[in-house]
């Protein structure tokens, strides 16, 4: 049974909130400064080291933060609490999917900040490293320890390896997790479906003549991949438990004039029910085996990034507290299956939520932006939430 301390007991006074707003306004430039400087340290997944060093140097500049790292180059900073009896982990991923050719510099106008990666999720990591400055401006002294964690290897094949490595070492000491994402203010994730990802590689034998007219009428890797896609689409998926198979990316071929030798399909399966996963994986392998045999091709299915369905319920004190905080700011909470790194935390039974910090538009182009006015609200949401959690009683999962 969970012992619930109703969050309303810890609601801050209007006067205090006004004081916080003023402090947040003062700290906003520091956050935007960090956002601008982060863009100077590109951090494509697996190549985050320079950004990690920058984040660690930021921690080191603040007397209140004790910095450390690990073999994944996670940037870890400890802000010690007055009692230090509980540990609240605040995390955001530092990597993105942009290669060095993408200009990530930001452009600040009167009402918005624009640039590739700003909204998802450089804003999250910039907020994380500015938090100690915000605490200082607001003269906040918390009872619990705050652990600031900038994680690596979040995207794609990175498969949340940063947070997995951190939790392997420190997971049993974490009482609650808040994950920060750029978008959107009002969003709240606290549960996730069962998930597995799969990379399918279709490969033909090397042709003797690269561009043979006669071979063009035969099968090629892209056509084989097409058959695989058709077979994936023909797999019956139940409505209950809700199950989805999403083909997220395809690639293949080299030139107009050559028979394609390689093709790749990248897909994700999500389900409310963990048991669906084994069945679907097996069916995909069977289908691919048949198609490979009929086309004289090699097809490999590489499954990875699996996690079980898990999460909190809306009655959990952490969720209740977050919902109320969002409503207090005048936003309607939007809850969704999480695809963030809290899936790893939830799977380990750690009460975890993921929140958005601002309004805006995401995406990889430099048209991505955040609205500055909403950022102030987003930061107030975060500070309120941290203070409420600090005063809560038991946070154990239901």
């Amino acid at each position: 049974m969970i012992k619930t301390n109703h969050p309303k007991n810890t609601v801050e006074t209007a006067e205090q909130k006004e004081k916080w707003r003023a402090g947040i306004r003062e700290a906003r430039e520091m956050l935007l400064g960090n956002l601008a400087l982060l863009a100077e340290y590109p951090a494509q997944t697996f190549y985050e080291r320079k950004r990690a060093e920058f984040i660690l140097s930021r921690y080191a500049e603040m007397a209140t933060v004790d910095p450390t790292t690990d073999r994944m180059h996670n940037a870890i900073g400890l802000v010690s609490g007055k009692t230090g009896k509980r540990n609240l982990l605040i995390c955001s991923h530092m990597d993105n999917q942009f290669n060095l050719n993408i200009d990530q510099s930001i452009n600040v106008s009167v009402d918005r900040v624009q640039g590739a990666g700003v909204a998802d999720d450089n804003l999250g990591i910039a907020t994380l490293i500015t938090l100690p400055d915000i605490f200082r401006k607001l003269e906040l002294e918390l009872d619990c320890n705050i652990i600031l964690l900038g994680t690596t290897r979040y995207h794609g094949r990175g498969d949340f390896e940063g947070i997995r490595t951190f939790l392997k070492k420190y997971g049993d000491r974490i009482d609650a997790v808040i994950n920060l994402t750029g978008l959107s203010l009002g969003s709240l994730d606290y549960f996730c479906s069962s998930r597995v990802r799969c990379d399918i590689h279709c490969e033909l034998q090397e042709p003797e003549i690269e561009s043979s007219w006669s071979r063009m009428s035969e099968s090629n890797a892209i056509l084989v991949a097409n058959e695989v896609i058709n077979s994936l689409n023909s797999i019956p998926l139940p409505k209950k438990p809700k199950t989805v198979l999403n083909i997220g990316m395809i690639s293949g071929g080299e030139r107009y004039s050559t028979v394609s030798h390689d093709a790749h399909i990248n897909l994700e399966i999500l389900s409310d029910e963990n048991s669906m996963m084994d069945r679907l994986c097996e069916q995909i392998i069977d289908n691919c085996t048949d198609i490979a045999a009929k086309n004289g091709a090699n097809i490999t299915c590489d499954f990875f990034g699996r996690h079980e369905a898990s999460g909190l319920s809306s009655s959990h004190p952490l969720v209740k507290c977050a919902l109320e905080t969002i409503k207090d700011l005048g936003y309607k909470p939007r809850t969704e299956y999480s695809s963030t790194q809290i899936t790893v935390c939830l799977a380990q039974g750690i009460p975890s939520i993921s929140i958005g910090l601002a309004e805006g538009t995401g995406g990889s182009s430099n048209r991505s932006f955040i609205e500055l006015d909403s950022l102030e609200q987003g930061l107030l949401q975060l500070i309120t939430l941290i203070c409420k959690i600090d005063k809560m009683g038991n946070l154990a999962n239901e």
Partner: protein
Amino acid sequence: MNKLQQWLKSRTFHYSDFADIGKLVKIKKRKGLKISLCFPTLNEEKTIGKSVIVMKSELMDRYPLLDEIAVIDSGSTDKTMEIAAKFGADTYLASDYLKEEGTCYGKGENLWKALYLLKGDVIIYVDADISNIHPRFVYGLLGPLLIKPDIKFVKAFYNRPFKSADNITPAGGGRVTEILIRPLFSQFFPELTGIIQPLSGEYAGYREILTEINFPIGYGVETGMLIDLHQKYGLDAIAQTNLDLRIHRNQSVASLGKMSFGILQTFWNRLAKYKEQPLLTPDSLTLRQMTSDKDDYNLIQHEIKEKERQPMSQVKEYQNMIKELKKNDNSRK
């Protein structure tokens, strides 16, 4: 050359030499100095917000190194001034001040009026069009001024991200520097060839020296400033700092042509001012260019004497050949 090479070694820095900003703040306080940062602007709404935010958050809020950040504008028609003010810069429209001196328009005018409008003992000028703006653009320039008492003026230079076939990095400036300024300096002010990028838009100096020199209002401001400071205070009062990469808008050849035209006017004025027989005989026919191997900068010298051939019609053998040809023609007739 030895003196110049020696200067190059003792007066060339890297911004990372001054990355301990806390130490700079202590020196500034001990010396009781006020430090001002000036962004001269004209329609820079795309980059000014970030520039002000980065400098204010890092060098005023986090470390109290700067005492003021000001934007001095030539009359932008976009939101440059509004954005700069919103993020905490003091904003001035240049034409509103010192009206009795008449109104001129140009970057140099803004830099000159900064001396009147800003309060600092040290003034740092940073162009507002830098897209990879970073605190190093300020502390890298301030470092030598605060740490070495005999240095009064510091100029920025930047890495050029290309290598030649033999893997040696050309360490000079842009097109106008290498095609116009360096040849002119090599001929008339050879000591200034140690300045790697004389046209860079970022520099810092003590008020006491900046108020004693003329300010060309247009393209010639950097060239004029360097020559004047060198003539008045000597080469040892000048230093330069490598600020790594600077990403900014590339200019068209037509713009560079205009820039060169303005710079030439400033240059001829300085020749007339400092040389007894200007324009007649160059002081040197050695072109000095820069190379670098990592952070080791070297001048390479090329003796270039432009010889001229007389008209072919005046060459004796040619005359003989023509005579011979004519003779043969006549005999055939």
